[in-house]
């Protein structure tokens, strides 16, 4: 043994202790914040028994709320994927006046409270609203109806796809597209065969976040929908309603369904990502 080896050992050991403390803290943090609440729901559902779970999630009101959430989520995915990609393409590839302003605006839905966002739409499209009057004249209902809820969901999920695609697209650069042009590919062919596959993972991640937010959105949708049972009540609003009506088993059961749904999406994402890494 050389002199100084002892010291090295001690330093190494001390370092390890520090690492262990950090690992322990992280595990505790996750248990307290994530695992315990999930276990809480699960325990409540199990205690009530499977029968109560099935009857409470298969009431017409619950079924309608799930369908509505699904509809809003799919709409948000389709519209945000297309527009988010276009927004990212424009912001990365084009130079124009006010580009910085537009980029800042993109983050606004993150900064504004969803409830405030909801009220913005009430003011705009409500019965006495500036655009609401106009739509009213054509007998189109926006607030307390599906269009308003779609607009609110789109507003709160607007940044996700664009924000995830922008860095991927910037890193992707121009060269591969230029190489495709040289090889004879048109702009359209280049987009589908070269650009889109390269930004795919940013897109997938942005879509996942959009799904999670659409399923979980409460505030903005609550304000614009009015939470009318069997008409404008989404899954989260349904849970809230059950809870305020003291129907705890109904609330827990519906919450369980939403939690399972989110988990499934996360797991699918992880699996896809693993495949990508393997490639």
């Amino acid at each position, binding site marked *: 043994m050389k002199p100084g080896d002892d010291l090295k050992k001690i330093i190494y050991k001390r370092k390890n202790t520090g690492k262990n403390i950090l690992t322990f803290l992280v595990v505790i943090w996750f248990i307290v914040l994530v695992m315990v609440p999930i276990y809480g729901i699960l325990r409540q559902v199990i205690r009530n028994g499977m029968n109560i779970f099935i009857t409470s999630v298969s009431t017409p009101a619950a079924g309608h709320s799930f369908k509505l959430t699904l509809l809003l989520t799919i709409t948000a995915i389709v519209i945000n994927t297309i527009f988010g990609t276009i927004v990212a393409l424009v912001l990365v590839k084009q130079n124009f006046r006010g580009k910085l302003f537009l980029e800042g605006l993109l983050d606004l839905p993150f900064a504004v409270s969803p409830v405030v966002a909801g009220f913005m739409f009430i003011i705009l499209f409500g019965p006495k609203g500036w655009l609401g009057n106009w739509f009213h004249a054509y007998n189109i209902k926006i607030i307390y109806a599906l269009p308003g809820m779609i607009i609110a969901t789109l507003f709160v999920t607007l940044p996700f796809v664009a924000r995830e695609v922008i860095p991927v697209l910037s890193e992707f650069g121009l060269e591969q597209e*230029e190489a*495709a*042009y040289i090889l004879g590919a048109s702009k359209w062919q280049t987009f589908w065969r070269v650009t889109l596959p390269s930004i795919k993972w940013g897109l997938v991640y942005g879509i996942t976040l959009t799904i999670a937010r659409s399923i979980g959105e409460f505030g903005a949708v609550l304000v614009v929908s009015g939470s009318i049972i069997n008409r404008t009540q989404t899954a989260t609003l349904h849970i809230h309603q059950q809870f305020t009506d003291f129907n705890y088993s109904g609330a827990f059961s519906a919450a369980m369904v939403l939690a399972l749904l989110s988990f499934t999406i996360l797991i699918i994402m992880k699996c896809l990502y693993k495949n990508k890494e393997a490639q």
Partner: protein
Amino acid sequence: MGIVIRNVYKRFGDFIAVDDVSFEIRTGELVALLGPSGSGKSTILRIIAGLETPDRGDILLKGEDVTSFSTQKRKLGFVFQHYALFKHMSVEKNIAFGLEIRKRKKKEIEEKVSELINLVKLQGYAKHYPSQLSGGQRQRVALARTLATEPKILLLDEPFGALDAKGRNNLAQWLKELHTKLNITSIFVTHDQNEAIEIADKIVVINRGRVEQIGNAKDVYEHPKSKFVASFIGNVNIVETVIRNSNIFIRGTDFQIIDKNIDTSEDRDLVLLVRPEDVYVESSDAHQGFPCRIQNIHYRGSFFELDIDLQNTYIKAVKDKNIFLKEVWEKNQPAFIHFTQYKIFDASEGHGKIRKKLRQLGYIE
């Protein structure tokens, strides 16, 4: 004519990248666009490819004016400095890309791809992704992908720039062989004079967006038309000279230089450019050399480099190892010097500026 570039001009904001450039390239030639970074050589290549639009001027390919054509329509090959391989595609998919766009039959594509994989010596790598390949291999995939579409003109932007010295040499030789075999009109951009001298049939020297000289390697090296060319191609001593009493002298000395092409009737400043290998140093006065002093001796592998002090004008000379070792040389010993070949330019050609620029670029000390 293979390629004609006529009065091409391009500016980016305040920066004039290409300033009224014209040159012609014959079918089948391998041409180097040589110049320091920022000289506009890459921009010229991109203008030929249609990746940049010139503000003025015309591009003719095979006699046809293609200035208004899109990149796709020009049907040429382009190899990017950083390869620009499609990262999400395997080697074979990369190579097949151009053929798939052209809607060739599946069997034909397969045959062509395997033929090209053999040509670029990447057998066994067909299913690999670009991230799994070395720099040299990626460059060869990029070449195969370009050759798949059978272009009549091949443009290469710093094709060896991102490779290490050995890989660069191998690939340069290989490109030369390939060019001889396929006989595609090719232009490559480089800042490395050795590369240009080694493989190009013709060198176009570019500086600050202008063509300085066009010629074969020997022309450009032996008979530089400007101070820039002389100093950029190869190493060169830049020595200040003056005209005194109708004779040319190295400034501050009585070392007289004879050049019959220079009008010596008027006293003025001149610049003499002499390559280190054209500086002849010997320890005896056998050839009536001018007396000087050996200030320093550097070992450089196959040759020795000598710093010579000519009454406070410093000149570099090189001596082949075998010749050098025949005599005993020491620091600070007196010696005699003369120039076997040199070139004199008028100092009014913006000497100071060029020198400053060259120093910044590290081409002179």
